[in-house]
């Protein structure tokens, strides 16, 4: 049986992969996917804690509730984010972050 540490390690690694993707990749859609990976990693942590800190012989469902809300908000975020990307692409004909530097101070 896998222990809590295994789950946490795996989830941490997934988060690290997502973070690396955000920092390294320059395609904004891929960056966006990596954000989703990081969110999912957090979800895994939540579910793992919920399972390993049971109450009255059942998993702690409060943790799972939080996962639901994260998923819902993530779905909304994806929808809005992709819409922004579409609008951005229409305006600039690029989704390459190197070319999107109009926020330079």
């Amino acid at each position, binding site marked *: *049986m*896998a*222990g*809590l*540490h295994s789950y*946490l*390690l*795996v989830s941490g*690694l*997934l*988060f690290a*992969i*997502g*973070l*690396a*993707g955000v*920092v*390294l*990749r*320059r*395609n904004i*859609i*891929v960056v966006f*996917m*990596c954000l*989703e*990976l990081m969110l*999912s990693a957090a*979800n*895994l942590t939540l*579910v*793992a804690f*919920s*399972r390993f800190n*049971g109450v*009255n*012989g*059942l*998993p702690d469902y*409060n943790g*799972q*509730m939080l*996962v*639901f*809300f994260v*998923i*819902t*908000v993530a*779905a909304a975020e*994806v*929808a*809005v984010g*992709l*819409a*922004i*990307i*579409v*609008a951005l692409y229409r305006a600039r004909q690029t*989704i390459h972050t*190197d070319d999107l530097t109009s926020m330079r101070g």
Partner: protein
Amino acid sequence: MPLPLFWFFAILMLVGGLAVISLRNPVAAALSMVASFVGLAGLFIGLNAYLVGIIQILVYAGAIMVLFLFIIMLLDLKTEEKRAPKVVPVVGGLGIVLAFTIQLIGVLGKTPPKESEPLDLVAAATHQTGGIQETLKDDRLPDVNLVGDLMFTEYNLPLQIVGVLLLVATVGVVVLSKRQTA
């Protein structure tokens, strides 16, 4: 969850994640992400979170991935042309990831390991009532019932608020996607 199965899903998830950040074709990246999420859903189910696992597949691997692919195709993105990687971001990004991993291992090393206890559903039945109690007495986990019970009692207000958030997001997407007509 048996250890080999855990590692299978975990490695599926991590390899999928690595593929997302390393493949140049965005379509391939999106499909790798589906694989990663399937692994993740397996891990969820292994943690007795059946509903979350199913939803992970349905929402992420299903709906959101389709959305990604749809946008990728809509924008007609080709494989990223090869650009010379910049040294500083690569080194910095990897450095951060490395530091994060080291910290993670440090934290895990400091805390005592915890093994999972098997769920004692029959004993848990004494704390529940109604249909949930009946199902628990049969030694089955009424996962959906429990989640639904919590969601519509204790978390009712956040649920409503999230509903409003989704509505706002929908309206926002419509507004953003509308072509500006002069």
